[in-house]
């Protein structure tokens, strides 16, 4: 029982409110009560007596306030603490409206995106330039070379990536070999499986698989690491100690991944070839011995160097992009998520662009 309509001593109609007007007490019957109160509020001569209310919280007060149409009824009886509550309600400003969207928003949005792209491009170039300067500085001060960080990065991005790259490489080798051997069998050209696997894996698939896996795996972790360091103010702490970010954080990552990546490429290609070899043996009956002996004839050595140099370039670019995005992250969680996503997407896109550039430049290298 929350309200009772009575007639007071002067004969005026009066509404007595009793019980608890708190959110917890009202929860389920809020809507019904709101309608009921609005009905009573339509009568301007009604006296409202709130002194019988045991507890009233903000939700209860807002409920009454809305029923009254955002002003006090003419006859209202309150206790002092309720008086405070309602006077605060009377002074509550409305929620400011957001300015409407500009009609030119598609243009400004597009312009913004172009500027952002330009910002990223110059940012990455500046970071790369800074790294060059750092390397010059380190050449003059070899004692300052961050060996520990480089080796830690080498371990994290190289050694710890061996498992996943081996798994993916092996399976791709198996699939590629299986499909190709089916086709080759039709023409009786079984022996060319070695050429197909050797060329495609050593020159293209090995480096690309490794680069895409590493971009997803190590690139994201580098961006997230730098981003969290921004959130926890660790980056600022380094700055005030006079330790440059580029030297201590970015350079070891770029060098570490630059060393680790060709090794991972080599590993991925080897395992993918192994997968292909196993299927070639099962499907076509080519012995392992024959496969390995024939491989150097089928694939010129230049392809291996090409694959490895792709690894070096991709590794350094992935680390550079990851660090660029990591350092741009602002100290909120939203920006952390968005930054990591853009970092990985950009890194994978750039890796594929680099591959295309290699394909064009070296189109007549290593192909018989």
């Amino acid at each position, binding site marked *: 029982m929350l309200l009772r309509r009575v007639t007071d001593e002067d004969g005026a109609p009066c509404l007595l409110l009793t019980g608890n007007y708190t959110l*917890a007490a009202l929860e389920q019957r809020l809507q019904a009560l709101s309608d009921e109160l609005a009905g009573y509020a339509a009568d301007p001569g009604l006296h409202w007596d709130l002194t019988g209310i045991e507890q*009233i*919280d903000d939700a209860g007060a807002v409920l009454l306030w809305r029923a009254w149409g955002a002003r006090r009824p003419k006859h209202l009886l309150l206790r002092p603490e*309720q008086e*405070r509550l309602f006077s605060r309600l009377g002074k509550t*400003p409305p929620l400011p409206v957001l300015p409407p969207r500009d009609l030119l928003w598609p243009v400004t949005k597009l312009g913004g995106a172009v500027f952002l792209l330009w910002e990223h491009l110059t940012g990455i170039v500046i970071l790369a330039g800074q790294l060059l300067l750092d390397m010059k500085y380190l050449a003059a001060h070899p004692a300052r070379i961050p060996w520990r960080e480089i080796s830690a990065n080498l371990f994290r991005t190289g050694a710890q990536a061996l498992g996943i790259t081996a798994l993916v490489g092996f399976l791709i080798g198996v699939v590629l070999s299986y499909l190709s051997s089916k086709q080759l069998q039709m023409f009786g050209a079984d022996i060319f499986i070695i050429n197909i696997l050797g060329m495609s894996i050593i020159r293209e698939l090995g480096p690309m698989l490794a680069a895409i896996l590493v971009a997803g795996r190590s690139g994201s972790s580098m961006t997230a690491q730098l981003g969290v360091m921004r959130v926890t103010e660790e980056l600022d702490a380094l700055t005030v100690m006079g330790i440059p970010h580029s030297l201590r954080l970015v350079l070891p990552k770029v060098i570490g991944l630059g060393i680790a990546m060709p090794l991972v490429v080599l590993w991925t290609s080897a395992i993918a070839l192994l997968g292909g070899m196993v299927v070639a043996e099962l499907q076509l009956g080519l012995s392992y011995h024959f496969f390995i002996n024939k491989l150097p004839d089928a694939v010129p050595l230049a392809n291996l160097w090409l694959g490895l140099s792709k690894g070096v370039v991709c590794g350094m670019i992935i680390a550079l992009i990851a660090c660029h995005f990591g350092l741009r992250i602002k100290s*909120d969680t939203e920006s952390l998520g968005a930054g990591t996503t853009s970092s990985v997407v950009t890194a994978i896109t750039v890796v594929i662009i680099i591959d295309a550039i290699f394909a064009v430049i070296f189109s007549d290298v290593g192909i018989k």
Partner: protein
Amino acid sequence: MTNTDCIIEVEGLHSRFGNHVVHEDINLCVHRGEVLALVGSSGSGKTVLLRQMLGLETPAQGIVRVFGQPVHGADRNELQSMRNRWGVLFQKGALFSALSVFDNIALPMRELHTLDERMIRDLVMLKLKMVEIEAQHANKMPAELSGGMIKRIALARAMALDPELLFLDEPTSGLDPVLSEGFVKLIQALRTELTLTIVMATHDLDTLAALADRVAVLAEQRLLALGSLREVIGISHPFITNFFLGERGKKTLGNNGYIL
């Protein structure tokens, strides 16, 4: 055995991290309507105890009951209704950075699914008014705010559902003296309007002297003392002497009308 007067009951609580023992047999009862301050040096497990009361961490041994129900092992619905009845102010505010100030405060109200959007709007603006944040900041994101504002908005969010029980973790740390005095006044005003039970972990003697009805001192893995500030000061123990009766402590307590 459940004491009806206890809004929070801690019984035989042990907690340890690996080999490191944090609490050994803690027994505590928080009475309805009181302000209990948890005091202790860094690493004495104030925050751990607070987190165990909230069900964020499980003690190695012992029971924590809030509103007469065990926090650990309650079913989903019970836990949810328990959580709607308490509000928590985290040390750094813990505002959701993806949501605007308005949406941060509106979130617990919207989660109830019983309030309509217009009512939520009025309520949020009222809460903002209560913590003295101007309406123009309602559409800002937490990243655009100062530390003091974040703290006040976090309090508004903790108070969103008008809880009976409020947990405050270092409520005045990071606030300037004027703001922290305002904060204390705000809590005092709230207590006159509602039966509010408050558990706070604090280092700030001013806040402690102004708000706390009882003080629980945690040290040496146990509950060293529990009682009014005056009683606690009377206990002779190196930590208590250091904490309350050091140079700084004497001055603060003197300012708050304690004759030592």
